[in-house]
């Protein structure tokens, strides 16, 4: 009997690695590519230095009024002076600590959920989800325990943006999941209700929903009965976004093979248990990119609340730039607003990537 000897594994050839090889392969692989590369460098040369000069090198960093902005570049003094308004809107200055405390509570409260050794995450998470909104409401709104009442029409800036975005998501996510399940229900009545709801809310623009909630709704309500403007906007946003969440989640549900449903059923798990323990965990994991997409879109859409006279971050900037004392500062303001929006959205996007990796048990089923 002969024994077959396998050839040993050899290292790959050297010239396919290293920065030189990379540049040759990606930037200068042919005459045409070399030309395009040089052209791209030229474009970068045209665009980047002026931006650097405007934003950093020639920018004005210190001062208190518009007159202090003597250099050619951006006048960041404007942002410094109006920072409070951008963050809190017209929330009274001496009470702004309450907003800060609300944010800190959220950060401290959520932190244990990221400690992997922490047991009982589910119970802690649930009680946090129930308690935090109540505490946050009383802290921000006041009117109890001797806290001065701050009506919602004084809320604004980034704080308002965050309130609308988080409440919107916290409400839309569970409602959307229920709608997605309902749309796939065997019971025709439930299916019809869910389909109608989803198609109605997806069919109208958010701006219309907000407009209706502030202009049309009071016409139907009895005289003198007012619902808070922010509350109306929140309800509108939740109903609107839940329709989108529902469709995203439904996509995930459809991707779960029939075998998973059958295996769960064959073990004696009923509808709710097999949905909650087997189907949803997999479906939601699959649609993380889609859900984050929806969340980011909602975060940016909050600016539409200008239509009902609420001033979120972007609209606070717009308002401040219209101040005669700071005329001509709109560019700085918008760049600042864009930067803040970008930081939040990019953060969410990175977190979703991290979450996908963490939940990935690899491997197809």
């Amino acid at each position, binding site marked *: 009997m002969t024994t077959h000897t396998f050839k040993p594994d050899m290292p790959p050839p050297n010239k396919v690695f290293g920065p030189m090889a990379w540049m040759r392969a990606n930037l200068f692989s042919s005459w045409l590519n070399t030309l395009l590369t040089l052209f791209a460098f030229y474009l970068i040369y045209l665009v980047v230095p002026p931006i650097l000069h405007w934003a950093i090198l020639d920018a004005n960093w210190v001062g208190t009024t518009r007159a202090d902005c003597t250099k050619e570049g951006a006048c960041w003094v404007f942002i410094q002076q109006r920072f409070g308004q951008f963050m809190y809107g017209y929330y009274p200055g001496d009470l702004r600590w309450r907003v800060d405390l609300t944010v800190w509570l959220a950060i401290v409260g959520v932190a244990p959920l990221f400690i992997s050794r922490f047991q009982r995450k589910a119970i802690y998470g649930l009680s946090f989800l129930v308690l935090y909104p109540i505490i946050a409401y009383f802290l921000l709104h006041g009117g109890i325990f001797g806290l001065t009442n701050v009506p919602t029409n004084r809320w604004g800036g980034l704080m308002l943006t965050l309130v609308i975005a988080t409440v919107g998501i916290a409400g839309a996510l569970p409602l959307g999941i229920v709608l997605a399940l309902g749309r796939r229900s065997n019971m025709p009545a439930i299916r019809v209700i869910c389909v109608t709801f989803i198609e109605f809310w997806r069919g109208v623009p958010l701006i219309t929903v907000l407009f209706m909630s502030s202009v049309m709704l009071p016409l139907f309500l009895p005289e003198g009965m007012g619902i808070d403007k922010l509350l109306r906007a929140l309800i509108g946003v939740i109903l609107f976004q839940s329709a989108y969440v529902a469709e995203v989640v439904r996509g995930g549900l459809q991707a779960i093979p029939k075998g998973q449903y059958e295996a*769960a059923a*064959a*073990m004696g798990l009923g509808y709710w*248990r097999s949905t909650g*323990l087997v189907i949803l965990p997999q479906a939601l994991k699959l649609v993380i990119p889609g859900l984050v997409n929806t969340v980011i879109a909602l975060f940016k859409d909050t600016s539409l609340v200008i239509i009902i006279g609420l001033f979120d971050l972007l609209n606070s900037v717009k308002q401040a730039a219209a101040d005669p004392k700071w005329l001509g500062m709109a560019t700085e303001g918008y760049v600042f607003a864009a930067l803040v929006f970008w930081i939040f959205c990019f953060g969410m996007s990175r977190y979703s990537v991290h979450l996908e990796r963490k939940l990935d048990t690899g491997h197809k089923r």
Partner: protein
Amino acid sequence: MSEAIKQPVSPEGIIQMQGVNKWYGQFHVLKDINLNVKQGERIVLCGPSGSGKSTTIRCLNRLEEHQQGRIVVDGVELTNDLKQIEAIRREVGMVFQHFNLFPHLTILQNCTLAPMWVRKMPKRKAEEIAMHYLERVRIPEQAHKFPGQLSGGQQQRVAIARALCMKPKIMLFDEPTSALDPEMVKEVLDTMIGLAEDGMTMLCVTHEMGFARTVANRVIFMDKGEIVEQAAPNDFFDNPQNERTQLFLSQILH
């Protein structure tokens, strides 16, 4: 919450199918199936594809609904009542062609899920039982891996252990080796043979005729939704009566 209506298990058998008919739309898939299975009996169903053998065993735990006839499993009649269906599913384990393990749970969690949520077993007890059965299928060291990290043969053995964790009275196998690479078929069949030796009531749809010959008490041949022939394995393979059976056997036993 009312309990499922249960009658004493009839001497006829732990499974009784009487005049069962089923249609997919116009298509008549099961035609007047009569089948009694005694406790501890091991039955192999075979036949060409589309003959209704998978549908037959899937009717036993209501993964498929039958439209006519009567099915009684372990003294519980299968009706539209969810209580009855769930009572049966608690006592009937099933192993699928494509394993259908839950990819988001570890092997151990796959095995403890149903005992904890259906039988309301405390976690520690469920894990004890799960480890016992994982040892039986000889993969306790994989307990904390995810299904995607296991080979097909290992996954199917986990699926068997997962079904056993519910301590079922009956095990249904729906082509358990058909999706496996050839060198993994034996490890799964060995596990099933071990189960048979312990006296488990088994119904198995398979094309593994060697397995049928050594393990089965009875081999049932189905074609076009009907039970064409049933006999003890030796009679069935050596002396098939029906010409359809003869043709089928000549095609698979080259």
